[in-house]
């Protein structure tokens, strides 16, 4: 039988160390929403989302109450809209109308984000894909809860550089259109290579075409719990350090598994995966940067940071895999700048640069995440930064992503402020030398030699 010390330990994790389930994300296929006119498609989409997800928020709250574990976000991911809207959308503005319907549906069911205003263009773009990408700035500026993503590369196909170049321009446009809110639109857009079909985390969640009609995916969190566990093993060997992270990750993930199974049962929707991510928030004591400091670095970004992060990421997976029946999504430590107070501090102290962050993304999930850059940064330079990050993912057979926020009218030394889970970010300097001739070449970067495994 459970003893009092175990109960106290669990409740302390929740009350003092910010243990929570970060998101229950309901994946919904919209492939059956196709019709002959745009109006019908819009109607079908609204109907399918609002009926499938009508009990999502209520069920999440019931589980929270019954188990005493906070579930911070309830969200929806959908089939990439370029596929759903493709047959009926004749202009980019037609796609924007679908985005607005998604926003209304999200508000109706009470979720804070809906992800999947997306296109998968890793090898080439259809006219619909291109129109969707063209529509992203307006879609993000005129909606509140819609998140967008584009997959521009993969290990099997290489990198679609025409899409990378176009997205560089669209990120700038999105920043311009939402400059009153410090470029908030860009915080809702991610560009990927090797994007997973079952990612529950925003802004990059979408419901892949390989998925079932509907599915429950859960993202766990718990940087604060890992940090507190590591406080007890200061100065100990790497073996002790790794064992501690692994055991803690196991406990955190088990809670996610419980919530996922329970949500699946109550909603009568199959359980998909647990995403084993350490997802920080701007709250004190909920930071991946703080874990890196606890491992032995003065600040995230100091020499040794990449090694420390590699170790952390690997142990989180090793502990988490055993705790869950199915694992997927991004699964790893997130290193967003604006959403992590100690990462912000590291940037402000001059310890952490864009280039060091790029190196760190080789060994953990996601990529350059929530990074504010000077508003004057050119579209070509943004495309160059994206291309570098995509190449890391392509060659290392992993997911990488870029979520950059050009802060219009602001420069290094200023900050951007989003509030809530998105936090604030100091503007980071960007390498000033040009890559224009490189990104202006047409076509694709071919797949790397080690992708030819057949």
């Amino acid at each position, binding site marked *: *039988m*459970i*003893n*009092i*010390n*175990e*109960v*106290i*330990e*669990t*409740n302390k994790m929740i009350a003092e160390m910010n243990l929570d389930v970060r998101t229950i994300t309901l994946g919904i296929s919209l492939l059956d929403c196709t019709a002959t006119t745009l109006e019908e498609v819009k109607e079908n989409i609204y109907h399918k989302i609002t009926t499938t997800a009508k009990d999502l928020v209520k069920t999440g709250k*019931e589980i929270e*109450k*019954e*188990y*005493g*574990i906070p579930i911070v976000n309830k969200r929806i991911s959908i089939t990439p809209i370029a596929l759903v809207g493709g047959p009926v959308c004749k202009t980019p503005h037609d796609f924007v109308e679908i985005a607005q319907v998604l926003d209304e549906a999200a508000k109706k069911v009470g979720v804070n984000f809906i992800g999947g205003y997306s296109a998968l263009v890793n090898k080439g773009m259809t006219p619909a894909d291109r129109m969707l990408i063209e529509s992203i700035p307006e879609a993000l500026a005129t909606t509140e809860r819609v998140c967008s993503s584009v997959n521009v590369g993969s290990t099997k196909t290489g990198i679609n550089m025409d899409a990378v170049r176009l997205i560089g321009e669209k990120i700038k446009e999105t920043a311009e259109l939402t400059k009153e809110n410090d470029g908030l639109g860009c915080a809702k857009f991610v560009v990927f290579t090797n994007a997973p079909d079952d990612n529950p985390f925003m802004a990059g969640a979408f419901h892949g075409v390989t998925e079932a009609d509907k599915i429950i995916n859960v993202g766990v969190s718990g940087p604060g719990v890992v940090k507190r566990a590591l406080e007890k093993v200061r100065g100990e060997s790497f073996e002790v350090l790794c064992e501690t992270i692994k055991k803690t990750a196991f*406990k955190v993930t*088990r*809670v996610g*598994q*419980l919530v996922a199974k329970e949500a699946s049962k109550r909603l009568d929707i199959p359980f998909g995966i647990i995403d084993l991510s350490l997802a920080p928030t701007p709250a004190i004591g909920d930071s991946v940067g703080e874990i890196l400091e606890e491992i032995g670095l003065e600040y995230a970004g100091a020499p040794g940071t990449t090694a420390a992060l590699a170790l952390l990421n690997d142990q989180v997976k090793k502990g988490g895999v055993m705790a869950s029946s199915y694992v997927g999504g991004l699964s790893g430590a997130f290193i967003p700048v604006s959403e992590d107070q100690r990462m912000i501090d590291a940037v402000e102290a001059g310890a952490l640069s864009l280039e060091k962050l790029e190196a760190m993304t080789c060994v953990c999930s996601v990529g350059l995440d929530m990074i504010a850059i000077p508003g004057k940064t050119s579209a070509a330079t943004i495309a160059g930064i994206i291309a570098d990050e995509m190449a890391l993912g392509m060659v290392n057979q992993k997911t990488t992503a870029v979520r950059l926020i050009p802060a219009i009218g602001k420069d290094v030394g200023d900050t951007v402020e989003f509030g809530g889970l998105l936090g604030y970010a100091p503007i980071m300097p960007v390498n000033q030398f040009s890559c224009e001739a490189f990104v202006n070449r047409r076509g694709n970067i071919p797949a790397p030699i080690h992708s030819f495994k057949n």
Partner: protein
Amino acid sequence: MKKTIITVVGKDSVGIIAKVCTYLANNSINILDISQTIVNGYFNMMMIVDTNESAKTVSDVSNELGQIGEEIGVLIQAQNEDIFNMMHRI
């Protein structure tokens, strides 16, 4: 059997257990086990209870005990046992 864990954390005072037990008895909730300890000067009590015969859900019990806790200045929670089993048992 559906088991629920009730925890009480706070400054020790007369009648805490009596108040909780009265509530449980009035709602047909059977106490299976009680243990308590002092952590950092705070009173920590845990009860394992059986809610099968009760008309109340775990969420109701948690809300109502939470209110009783507020009245006497301690934190009272009721949670489904599974969260602890999942975390501490393989």
